[in-house]
């Protein structure tokens, strides 16, 4: 668990960037720090691996105050991924991934195997990429290597500072998808900074919205979208926030019993926004909902999406 206790950070001569932040990142969760520029989200994250020291308050990782932990030791146990990646230009892809293990004295064969596993996991075939230099990779490929590098020492924690923000939309979405899968497999506790609401909703187990140096709202994505705590949250999450909520659900959450008059098909496991888009495309007629087995399990019409906000909760988020 990562815990912030009454953390305040004030840079010389300015107003406090962070003002008494108390926040807990539970084990195995991905918490997104989001907010407008200057809201201190990166600053808050960099307090965890002590790239910045708090003015007052304390940060705790694994039940230990980070101020009492050797800083190099601390950082080696916390993976770190940044927007500009920061690969070492003179090292090959494999050498970059092996960087931390090579410093901590992991045997060459062992760390090489680990690097190849991670590259494979990130969708970069070691045979093709291991011996390349960073400048020979695209931005998306570089960030894949950056994530593999952060995971090389198998840290329990991961700090990610806008890791996908510099990528084009298609690459970004592909990496988000892959990252979600990776997260389920590896189970790291992750603090993730972004300014992109869609990304936050997509990736976060919880979202922490920062503004004016304080936490404006902390909760599951659905809660920030549907029950914004104040005008600041409502305006930051955007006017189409109810549409974003659809992405958190599937067609199964909205469907009614099968309707013989329905034409066309949507998948039971489709995200609800995709199902809605299909319905709009079909001109508003009812459509069949089909399970992966091919069996028709229900039907869906446009009116099913209206007024459903109280009735249905997203799967796996009871009481959210």
């Amino acid at each position: 668990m990562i815990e912030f206790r009454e953390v305040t950070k004030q840079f010389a001569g300015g107003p406090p960037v962070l003002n008494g932040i108390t926040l807990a990142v539970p084990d195995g969760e991905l918490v997104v720090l989001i907010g407008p520029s200057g809201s201190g989200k990166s600053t808050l994250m960099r307090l965890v691996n002590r790239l910045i020291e708090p003015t007052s308050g304390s940060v705790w990782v694994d039940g230990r105050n980070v101020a009492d932990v050797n800083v190099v030791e601390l950082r080696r146990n916390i993976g770190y991924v940044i927007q500009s990646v920061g690969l070492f230009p003179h090292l090959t892809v494999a050498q970059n991934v092996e960087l931390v293990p090579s410093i901590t004295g992991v045997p060459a064969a062992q760390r090489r195997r680990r690097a190849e596993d991670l590259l494979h996991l990130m969708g970069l075939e070691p045979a093709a990429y291991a011996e390349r230099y960073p400048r020979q990779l695209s931005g998306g490929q570089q960030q894949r290597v950056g994530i593999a590098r952060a995971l090389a020492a198998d840290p329990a924690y991961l700090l990610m500072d806008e890791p996908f923000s510099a990528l084009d939309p298609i690459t970004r979405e592909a990496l988000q998808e892959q990252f979600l899968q990776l997260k389920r497999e590896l189970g790291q506790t992750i603090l993730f900074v972004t300014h992109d609401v869609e990304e936050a909703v997509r990736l976060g187990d919880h979202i922490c919205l920062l503004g004016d140096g304080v936490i404006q709202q902390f909760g599951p994505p659905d809660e920030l979208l549907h029950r914004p705590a104040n005008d600041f949250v409502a305006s930051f999450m955007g006017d189409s926030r109810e549409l974003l909520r659809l992405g958190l659900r599937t067609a199964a959450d909205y469907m009614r019993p099968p309707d013989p008059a329905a034409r066309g098909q949507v998948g039971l496991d489709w995200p609800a926004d995709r199902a809605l888009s299909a319905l709009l495309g079909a001109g508003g007629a009812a459509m069949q909902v089909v399970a992966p087995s091919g069996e028709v399990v229900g039907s869906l019409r446009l009116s099913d999406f209206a007024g459903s906000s109280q009735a249905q909760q997203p799967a796996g988020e009871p009481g959210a």
Partner: protein
Amino acid sequence: MSRLGVQAALLAAGWAAFFWLVSAQELWARVMGALFPQVSTPVYERNTLWELTWQHLGLTGVTMTLVVLIGVGLGVWTTRAQGHAFLPLVNNLTTVGQTFPPIAVLFLALPLVGFGATGAVAALTLYALLPVTRSTVLGLQSVDRPVLDAARGLGLSAAQRLWRLEVPVALPAVLAGIRTALVLTIATATLAPMVGTGGLGVPIIAGLGADNLALILQGAIPVALLALLGDLTMRTLERWLTPWVP
């Protein structure tokens, strides 16, 4: 790889040809005698060309060792927190060292370090320091902030950041600076005889005094070849040591 191999093989052949040429005293005497029938001494006679060449290589070698140690050392020190205040001073001093004509640096160094090889080496070192110090500073400053930030965030200590990141990234610039200094030193060392040492400058200066073009060429041709070979050697070394540079 093969391109580097070919380059290295050509270089080895070049050096072999050079050493054969400076060992062929008889050949020089015959060729220069034929080219300049009017001069009485077509080759320098007090030392063989072989001896003069090795004196020159010795002067260059000692100077370059000092230049690299001091230049890189100053560059690293002035880019650390503890030496940062001295960066402008070091920049200015090395620039001044090179602004003076080399001959002036040689004579200015005389009263400080005396006549002879020590004086020559000191003056040559001072003169060649600028490119190495300057390129080391620029090379170290060229490390991208995000890469340094990532290195810090991944748990590299200051020493590990220096040796595993900053030095390798600065290496192409440092090597280029050393190459410049090397060529400069090979050329400038021809002035060393004026403060009482040997080297390939000896026949040149003797030839200038006696209006003997044969003697001048006997010094100038090997110096030019040496500068060329030194430059090519450094370029090959750069390619070999920094394979990541496009």
